[in-house]
């Protein structure tokens, strides 16, 4: 291919070169022809001029001959010449001859013979008619012709340079009676001859040049400047260029002089002038040819001494040149035409070749394999793609049968030539899929197209094209899979880039109600538009789609039957191989039901199902959001923790449904009491929270606002709640925590509000209490205790110790003892039970601690029971409600009793009213179980709780303990005394022993004794002391 590309310019070059050569040859021919014609013309001119010169020369010789003979015939002339032979008479004879022939001389001058000169027998000048004053000079040296005439006595004719003037001279000897008298010379100056020649051809201008070397003798005395360098050569002189000697004659024209200057530089002219031969030369000046004919003129000695130069305009040559130029122009035009034709031909040929090359290039470039077989089925041509596919070389293929080489069916059993589709059935043309052996000799599916090569009706063979379709087959398979996938449960829409639907699947039709025919060609919006999405929604969707080539989201559309549905739509942009978006594919599913379910789940997750208020989770989300916005906007907010006072009582007394009714109503009233933007949530039970946001940047203003809202809430409870069971009155306790920024976490804020709420309850309920730092300190201290207690528990209760306080009879004899726990805190020292017992009861640590107390107490009791002095003692151990209601408590107690080895009758479990009444039935059951173990039960702090006889009767108690608050006020408060008396009377009735605790004075002991109290406990007798001290007390 490269070789061909390189060859192309050469073809053009050779074509152009050929034309140029032909053109140059034609120009050469024209030029040569012109030059030949020119030479002929010059020869003709030269010949003509030579003939003219000869003719003029001949005419003049004859004319001068006639003069001479008439002169010779004159007796007077001859006599005078004879007289002149005598020197004495010579002067007279000269004067006489001058006078005699002066008239003749005038005639001769008129005829151009300006020189009429007699020489004497001594070759001296005798009489010059043209210059009579000059005579007597010796001419023998400078005029050898005179001597020759004298010697030969025959006339001489020739061109000769004279002393004064050159001319065509005719010298005649003069004799009389054989006496040589001298010579006479007639001479014609050149001008005379010129005029004669001009008569023959007046288109010529003549000039005469003389050989300089022959005139040197004259040049030396050229005082009159008669001779000057000629216009034609430095070596040749022109005589009388200014026509001094013949003023009437025209001087050389400027044109001829101009051409003469050209000739002067012309080497041909120089050589021609040196040769002594006649020649002609032509010059092209100012657009026309000028001819100079140099006619060699010989002197009387036949030596060349001058040239007659004739000048003329060579019109014939101009015409010849014109014709030649026309011919050359025609040749050029023909050459150009031929060149054009040749180039066109070459271009056409090149185009044809290029086309063939291009076809070959296509053949070599095409991805399809191609081979040609002749009528015998032998491969004659095959392209690169085919060879590459087959893994064969061209040499290995050409001349072989394709069937033998790579047709797969050849390998089948019984395969023969006729089995080949291409050579058999497909010979006249085949199009289908076959298997060829590829380059690794594996059968490979190819699509084959075979066509007959026909030249007329003659079959030249077949052209077979094939290409590997194995990939196509795989793709087709993939397409089948894709088509199957297309028909999924999800609706699929394929649109063009303008959004016009190109294709939908059956799921689309099923989901939307529109058939494929209805959908194709229409924009989805036209079919499915529900009006639920704004234009901005779609604009945003297209923006994202164009930017990210993908979009996902929920769209509410409308089915063909008008029912709206919610779909989850995914749109993907499909790009072509250029990276341009060619289609959009939208897939969607109906998520209406799923959305509904999700909403329900959401509601369950975030809303209280009873009141439909946000639950704790949603509250926390909103609180976190409020904190974030507060931080960002520097706006105060407030959280009100609301707990219904005595709600449990309603539940317990009226049932849970009534309670629920109340909660629903409370929720309604709370919502009515706050702004729409505020959140009212229910945390659970009777706990509600109101979240107030955007309360301004100033905390005092915000507090005032919250106070107002809290008051509204309180006021909303003043009216009774109409429940199904009647009107119920309830009050709330409200705790408030304020916030500005995200200083506290959501949990901390809720906790603070909760604390404040408890504070409000403690403060008497139905009121509002704002959280303050003391609350926080207390809580933190409690938390610290809790953590320290955990450490104590984990380290074997090493920091705990049991103190014992004696219970004495009327005689101050210790009858029983109460075990009281003490905590030796490493940093804080002795910690009062008041400070940590509620804590461990709340956090559950009471169970392990209670267990330790029981074991330790029982262990001590065993010791006391083992001692005679103390074996009578009864040991009272406090058990909390949480312990009591713990399912394992009885078992644990039994195990301790057994393991400690004590007499259970010496052990007394003290319970509080609150621990019993919380779940009295269960408590009674447990208490009975404890009594079943032989252990006594005592009701601690009796009188502070319900102190109801109803359940007191049901409790399997053996003892009551009068709360120290009654004992303390016995001396001063009649009510306390009355209560104590009542308790004592009731105990007596129920046959229960009574212990009065907190006895600190004798008076108190006496008052109690009067009312029948038999056991006393208090500082009056003994503080709680360690066991060692107690033992000492016993001793």
């Amino acid at each position: 291919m490269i070789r061909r590309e390189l060859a192309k310019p050469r073809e053009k070059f050779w074509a152009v070169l050929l034309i140029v050569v032909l053109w140059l040859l034609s120009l050469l021919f024209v030029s040569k022809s012109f030059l030949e014609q020119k030479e002929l013309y010059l020869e003709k001119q030269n010949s003509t001029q030579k003939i003219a010169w000869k003719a003029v020369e001949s005419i003049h010789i004859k004319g001068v001959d006639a003069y001479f003979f008439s002169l010779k015939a004159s007796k007077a002339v001859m006599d005078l010449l004879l007289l002149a032979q005598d020197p004495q008479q010579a002067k007279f004879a000269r004067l006489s001859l001058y006078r005699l022939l002066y008239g003749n001389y005038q005639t001769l001058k008129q005829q151009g013979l300006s020189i009429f000169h007699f020489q004497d027998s001594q070759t001296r000048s005798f009489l010059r008619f043209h210059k009579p004053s000059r005579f007597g000079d010796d001419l023998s040296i400078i005029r050898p012709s005179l001597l020759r005439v004298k010697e030969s006595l025959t006339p001489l004719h020739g061109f000769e340079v004279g002393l004064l003037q050159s001319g065509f001279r005719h010298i005649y000897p003069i004799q009389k009676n054989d006496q040589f008298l001298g010579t006479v010379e007639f001479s014609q100056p050149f001008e005379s001859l010129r005029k004669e020649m001009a008569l023959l051809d007046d288109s010529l201008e003549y000039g005469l040049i003389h050989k300089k070397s022959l005139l040197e003798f004259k040049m030396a005395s050229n005082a009159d400047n008669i001779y000057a360098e000629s216009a034609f050569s430095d070596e040749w002189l022109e005589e009388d260029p200014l026509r001094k000697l013949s003023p009437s004659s025209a001087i050389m024209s400027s044109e001829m002089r101009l051409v003469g200057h050209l000739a002067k530089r012309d080497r041909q002219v120089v050589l021609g002038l040196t040769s002594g031969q006649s020649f002609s030369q032509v010059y092209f000046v100012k657009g026309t040819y000028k001819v100079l004919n140099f006619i060699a003129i010989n002197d009387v000695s036949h030596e060349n001494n001058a040239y007659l130069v004739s000048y003329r305009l060579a019109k014939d040559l101009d015409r010849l040149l014109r014709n030649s130029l026309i011919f050359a122009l025609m040749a050029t035009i023909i050459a150009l035409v031929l060149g054009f034709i040749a180039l066109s031909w070459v271009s056409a040929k090149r185009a044809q070749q290029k086309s063939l090359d291009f076809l070959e290039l296509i053949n070599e470039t095409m991805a399809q394999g191609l081979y040609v077989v002749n009528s015998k089925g032998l491969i004659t041509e095959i392209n690169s793609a085919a060879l590459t596919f087959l893994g064969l070389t061209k040499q290995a293929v050409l001349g072989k049968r394709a069937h033998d080489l790579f047709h797969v069916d050849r390998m089948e059993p019984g395969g023969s030539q006729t089995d080949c589709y291409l050579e058999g059935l497909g010979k006249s043309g085949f199009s289908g899929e076959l298997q060829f052996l590829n380059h690794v000799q594996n059968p490979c599916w190819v699509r084959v197209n075979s066509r007959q090569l026909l030249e007329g009706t003659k079959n030249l063979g077949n052209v077979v094209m094939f290409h590997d379709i194995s990939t196509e087959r795989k793709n087709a398979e993939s397409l089948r899979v894709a088509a199957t996938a297309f028909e999924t449960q999800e609706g699929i829409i394929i649109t063009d880039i303008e959004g016009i639907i190109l294709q939908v699947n059956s799921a689309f039709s099923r989901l939307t109600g529109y058939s494929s025919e209805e959908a194709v060609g229409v924009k989805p919006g036209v079919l499915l538009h529900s009006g639920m999405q704004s234009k901005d929604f779609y604009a945003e969707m297209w923006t994202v789609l164009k930017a990210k080539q993908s979009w996902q989201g929920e769209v509410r559309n409308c089915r063909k039957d008008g029912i709206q549905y919610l779909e989850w739509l995914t749109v993907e942009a499909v790009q072509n191989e250029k990276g341009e978006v060619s289609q959009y594919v939208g897939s969607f599913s109906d998520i209406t039901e799923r959305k509904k379910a999700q909403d329900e789940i959401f509601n369950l997750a975030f809303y209280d199902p009873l009141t439909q208020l946000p639950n704790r989770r949603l509250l926390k989300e909103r609180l976190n959001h409020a904190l974030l916005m507060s931080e960002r906007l520097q706006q105060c907010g407030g959280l009100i923790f609301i707990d219904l006072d005595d709600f449990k009582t309603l539940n317990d007394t009226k049932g849970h449904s009534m309670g629920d009714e109340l909660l629903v109503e409370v929720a309604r009233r709370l919502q009515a009491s706050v702004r729409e933007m505020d959140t009212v949530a229910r945390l659970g039970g009777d706990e509600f929270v109101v979240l107030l946001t955007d309360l301004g940047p100033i905390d005092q203003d915000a507090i005032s606002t919250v106070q107002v809202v809290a008051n509204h809430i309180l006021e909303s409870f003043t009216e009774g709640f109409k429940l199904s069971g009647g009107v119920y009155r309830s009050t709330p306790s409200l705790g408030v925590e304020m916030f500005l920024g995200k200083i506290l976490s959501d949990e901390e804020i809720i906790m603070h509000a909760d604390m404040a709420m408890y504070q409000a309850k403690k403060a008497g309920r139905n009121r509002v209490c704002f959280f303050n730092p003391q609350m926080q300190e207390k809580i933190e201290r409690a938390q610290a205790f809790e953590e320290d207690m955990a450490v104590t528990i984990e380290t074997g209760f090493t920091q705990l110790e049991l103190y014992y306080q004696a219970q004495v009879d009327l005689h101050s004899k210790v009858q029983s003892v109460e075990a009281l726990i003490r905590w030796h805190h490493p940093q804080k020292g002795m910690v009062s039970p008041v400070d940590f017992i509620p804590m461990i009861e709340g956090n559950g640590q009471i169970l392990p601690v209670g267990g330790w107390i029981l074991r330790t107490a029982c262990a001590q009791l065993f010791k006391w029971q083992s001692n005679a002095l103390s074996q009578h003692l009864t040991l009272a151990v406090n058990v909390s409600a949480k312990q009591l209601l713990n399912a394992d408590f009885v078992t644990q107690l039994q195990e301790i009793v057994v393991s400690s080895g004590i007499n259970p009758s010496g052990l007394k479990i003290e319970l509080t009213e609150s621990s019993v009444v919380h779940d009295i039935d269960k408590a009674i059951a447990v208490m009975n179980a404890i009594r079943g173990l032989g252990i006594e039960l005592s009701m601690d702090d009796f009188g502070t709780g319900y102190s109801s006889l109803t359940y007191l009767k049901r409790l399997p108690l053996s003892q009551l303990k009068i709360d120290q608050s009654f004992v303390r006020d016995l001396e001063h408060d009649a009510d306390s005394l009355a209560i104590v008396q009542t308790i004592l009377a009731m105990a007596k009735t129920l046959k229960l022993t009574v212990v009065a605790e907190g006895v600190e004075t004798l008076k108190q002991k006496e008052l109690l004794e009067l009312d029948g109290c038999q056991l006393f406990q208090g500082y009056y007798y003994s503080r709680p002391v360690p066991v060692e001290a107690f033992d000492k007390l016993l001793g």
Partner: protein
Amino acid sequence: MKSSFVTKIQQNIQILAISLGFSMGIVASVEAQETLVFAPLPKESEVATITRSLPLANEMARILDRKVTVKYYKNYHEIIQAYLAGAVDIVQLGPLNYIALHKVAAGLQPIVSIRAAKNQQSYRCVLVAPLDGLAQLDEIKQIAAPKVLLTQPLSTCGWMAAEAFFADAGLTLSDYAYQSEGAHDRVALALLRNEGSIGCMADFIAERFQGLGLEVLKEGPLNPMFALISNPKKLLPTELQKLQTQLLGLSAEKLQTLGVGKFGFVVFDQQQMTQFTDRVEKLATKNEQLSELQLLDVTP
């Protein structure tokens, strides 16, 4: 014949005088020009005259390092007019024309005199006749239809010299027929051809025709030679000095190349010219015809 000749002379001189008067004012205003114009003696055709004069003009240009051109005037009258008009700066004049110009143009600067023949120092006018013709002037009275041949009217050897010869012989030229041949050699040839009885011409020309039969009957006094005259306003004294020195010192070889001046140059002889002038004036006072030459003295 005689009256027409006189009339012609008078007309020429009148025109010359008017022209002189008109031209004087112009001369004064003409400033020196860089190019000098040389007017040679009109002896032949214009081309030949110029050709023969060019070598001398070139030589003067070489000497002066100024351009010198040649301008042809048909006769003396035109030369004098041109000189007075400032059109020419160097003129070639014979002695009589020098006197005529000197009369109207003061301060003429003679450069050198020009030899007309080899070794010539001066020349004379001679009375000539063919050898077979008159032997003496007074024989003219004996022949029938005598005719006197002259050169030019204002030529030194023309009418004035002939009249002097005739006066010396007791004759009056105007009593005889006379004819102006235009040039000295023509006078000689015409006499040889018997076309005239007697003629007057310069001796050095007459000498050339003696071999042909021309005889000198009588010689006149010495005349100043032809001279190159310059306009003092056009040629600085230093230039004049330089020109004189170098022309007088030209070698023989150099002289061979010249046309005019080929026989060499001599110092202008002012004394000779003064004598010639006196002679002319004396002659004029004696002769009525010659007195008409006084018109030359008319100044503007």
